[in-house]
């Protein structure tokens, strides 16, 4: 184990220094996407749906979209941005001429992706608060779900980015992986009411489902035992993938 937190933080600070320059251009599209979904689907479609999962449709959408905002924040960072730094800019090769080790690079990047997930999820949460869609105080528990979602999708994205042969593969990642997750992870409709039991078991494998269930439980303030399974899945899967990423990042940067 050769992870050093100060060195990992110096990697984090590299990204933060750059982000300070560009956040105005980055944050707007990423931030408004879930806001548009909330109001278009929530108010537009919601007008034809009297209630869902025991609440108004827009209130049903809110917790899931917090996780989607966090997922998007982390995903952009660990896909295109990491790939460009790795392959085109050679930023990691330069870091490895200093005392920074591959483990520090991975930790710094994942920490940064979690930070961006926090920024996007957090901003969206503030919007929900302003519109009275985040019930207090229970929904504050969702603030813990945001970094967990970021961690999980940072881990998934980093493994993908380290193993693909070219940058074009990211269109598969977004359209064939993230988009179906977005649509079939309890965000827009309760899976339990629409899927048969065998399909419900399949759905348990979907990574976004677990943070969404955690966020929904937070918003409702009703925690059942399944929360433990959701936490275990989110943390366990993140850990497994990060161990895999650790091997990949070493193989990519040293030989």
């Amino acid at each position, binding site marked *: 184990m*050769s992870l*050093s937190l*100060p*060195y990992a933080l*110096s*990697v984090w*600070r*590299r990204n933060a*220094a*750059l982000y300070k*320059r*560009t956040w105005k251009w980055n944050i707007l599209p990423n931030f408004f996407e879930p806001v548009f979904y909330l109001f278009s689907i929530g108010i537009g479609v919601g007008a034809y749906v009297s209630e869902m999962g025991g609440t108004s449709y827009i209130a049903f959408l809110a917790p899931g979209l917090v996780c989607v905002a966090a997922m998007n924040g982390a995903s952009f960072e660990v896909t295109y941005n990491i790939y460009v730094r790795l392959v085109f*800019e*050679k*930023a990691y*090769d*330069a*870091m*490895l*001429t*200093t*005392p*920074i*080790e591959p483990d520090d690079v991975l930790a710094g990047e994942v920490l940064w992706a979690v930070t961006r997930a926090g920024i996007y999820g957090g901003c969206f949460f503030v919007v929900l608060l302003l519109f009275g869609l985040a019930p207090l105080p229970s929904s504050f528990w969702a603030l813990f779900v945001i970094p967990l979602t970021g961690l999980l999708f940072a881990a998934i994205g980093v493994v993908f980015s380290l193993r693909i042969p070219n940058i074009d593969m990211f269109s598969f990642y977004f359209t064939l992986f993230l988009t179906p997750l977005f649509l079939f992870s309890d965000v827009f409709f309760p899976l339990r009411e629409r899927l048969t039991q065998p399909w419900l078991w399949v759905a348990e494998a979907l990574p976004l489902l677990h943070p969404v269930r955690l966020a929904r439980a937070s918003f409702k303030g009703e925690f059942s035992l399944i929360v433990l399974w959701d936490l275990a899945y989110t943390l366990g899967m993140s850990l497994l993938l990060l161990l895999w990423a650790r091997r990949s990042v070493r193989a990519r*940067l*040293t*030989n």
Partner: protein
Amino acid sequence: MARPVVQARGLTKMFGARLAVDHLDLDVPARVCFGLLGPNGAGKTTTLRMIYGVTWPTSGTIRVFGMDIGHHVRAVRSRLGVTLQQNVLIEALSPKENLLVFGRYHLLREPELSRRAEELIDFLELRSHAHLPVRQLSGGFQRRLAIALSLINGPELLILDEPTTGLDPAVRLALWSRIRELRAAGTTVVITTHYMDEAQRLCDQVAVVSSGKVIASGAPTDLISTRLAPEAVELDCTPGEEAVLLDRVASGRRLRVGKRLMLYLDDAADLIERVRRLDGGDRRPIIVRPTNLEDVYLSLTGTNLEANP
């Protein structure tokens, strides 16, 4: 004599079945400028990567500052600086901000961090554009900044991988003078270059690497005087003319590239006489000049492009 800064013994690196570095021995003494020369693919960059510990030897040993790099990666890297072949800069940030980011990789803290950054901005003459985004700067400016980054920790060993490739003559001269200043201040410099004039002017010692092995090493002047005669003659001639002209000249080395023939002689006068006689009234151009490091390099590594794919 002091302990060498870099010492490699039997250093070997295989990439799959390809032998990149082959039982290479290397001693880089402290406080010298050391040139690692050789054709593309000779194993120079792989050797450098083994020095700073991102490529692991298949066999052999390498010690840097007397430490086994395999066990002391962070300690070794905290005392050296590397300028990679490709500039690694954050284009949206200014030179000053780039220096601050890079300084943090070494865990430098304020006010030391800003002090070092300001010093290097002056040392590499970056002041005029220190606050513009790097993407707006010229190639020479960006290269100087890349070198400044590798100096942020005040390294005892500076590794420069082709630092002047693609730069204009004025920038090259300025960089040479900075490298000399660093060496005079006690920094050990390891440089790779394809410019033999650069190596000859800058380096106290060079090692010529071919197919992963050191095939010659020493001070440039010693290499020249021991390997080739002092006068180099260049002229265009056919192989047939060459046979006639050099019939009784028991000269040392000759190099031929297409029509161009290069000969190395103790005294060129006799040969020039013979060429003039052969030519009659129609005199062909002949260049006579002192033998230089490029001649030695070509005589060692050959002029055949196929040899080093």
